[in-house]
């Protein structure tokens, strides 16, 4: 039973790396988890998810205004870019870079389209993180230990 779950988790995480959802910064997080900080990955990921949800809400609010303050929108996109880079959320990070370009161009349409994209990608990532952290938390710890040994 445990082996099947481990395999599933292994497949999930590998898939996230393979499809570019995650980059090697996530492995950096894994390396920082040990017996003195056994929940480090789940804590950082949870903070990122909460922070990301807040920022996406702000982005939507800002773009909904009759006169969009693109500098403000850009600063929120910059925040999300930063925190996604810190946890290795590569795909979300890259979309934030696109987002900032539309802010530079003062393109409301471009920003709205990119907001939709970043929202979809963020929630997809969040769902996968939740599977990792809530459904299989102990398996995750085993997996992290094993993956560190094999790398």
């Amino acid at each position: 039973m445990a082996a099947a779950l481990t395999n599933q988790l292994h497949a999930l995480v590998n898939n996230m790396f393979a499809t570019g959802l995650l980059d090697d910064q996530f492995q950096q997080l894994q390396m920082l988890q040990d017996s003195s900080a056994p929940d480090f990955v789940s804590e950082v990921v949870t903070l990122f998810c909460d922070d990301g949800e807040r920022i996406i809400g702000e982005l939507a609010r800002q773009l909904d205004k009759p006169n969009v303050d693109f500098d403000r929108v850009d600063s929120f996109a910059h925040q999300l870019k930063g925190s996604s880079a810190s946890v290795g959320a590569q795909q979300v990070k890259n979309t934030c870079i696109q987002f900032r370009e539309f802010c530079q161009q003062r393109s409301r349409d471009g920003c709205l389209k990119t907001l939709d994209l970043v929202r979809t990608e963020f929630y997809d990532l969040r769902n996968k993180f939740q599977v990792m952290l809530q459904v299989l938390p102990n398996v995750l710890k085993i997996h992290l230990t094993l993956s560190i040994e094999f790398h």
Partner: protein
Amino acid sequence: MAVATEAQFHVLAVDDSLPDRKLIERLLKTSSFQVTTVDSGSKALEFLGLHDHEDSPISVHADQLDVAVNLIITDYCMPGMTGYELLKKIKESSNLRDIPVVIMSSENIPSRINRCLEEGADEFFLKPVRLSDMSKLKPHILKSRCKEHYQQEEHLQSNNSMNPTNENSSSISSSCHKRKAVDGEILLHTIRPRHC
């Protein structure tokens, strides 16, 4: 209470982003630093015993010192006070200017990096910061300690030369006493915290 054989260096980390604060804290603790994190430049200055609206820093006496900070690591882009503005305030303070400051930024902008280094930042890290970056911190702390020790030695020597005649023996013995005290102490930048 057990006495540590080797004092841990204390780093003050400043970042408005919660996930980033968590990460930098873990990176620093993994590298055996004692860590305090704050979410803004003004809170950093408060912790360091400096109000940002005052023109002159609070003078701090040795017997009032409670908290030592050996290095400050700060994000560049923060609302309110940027990391650069925080750096400037630290360098303007006679009490704090010798504390090494490291700037972190997610953006690789050469003019920004140069501006920070010119203002006195000791190091610039590109985010996301990695474990390998942590090994760059201790040399800056040790360098500033050596500088402080050297400055104290110079000060003692210039005191000696001001009393060339029969007061020589007493001034030498008092400076020797001071030197002993300096050698015996851990040379930390100690600042009275204002939050308690």
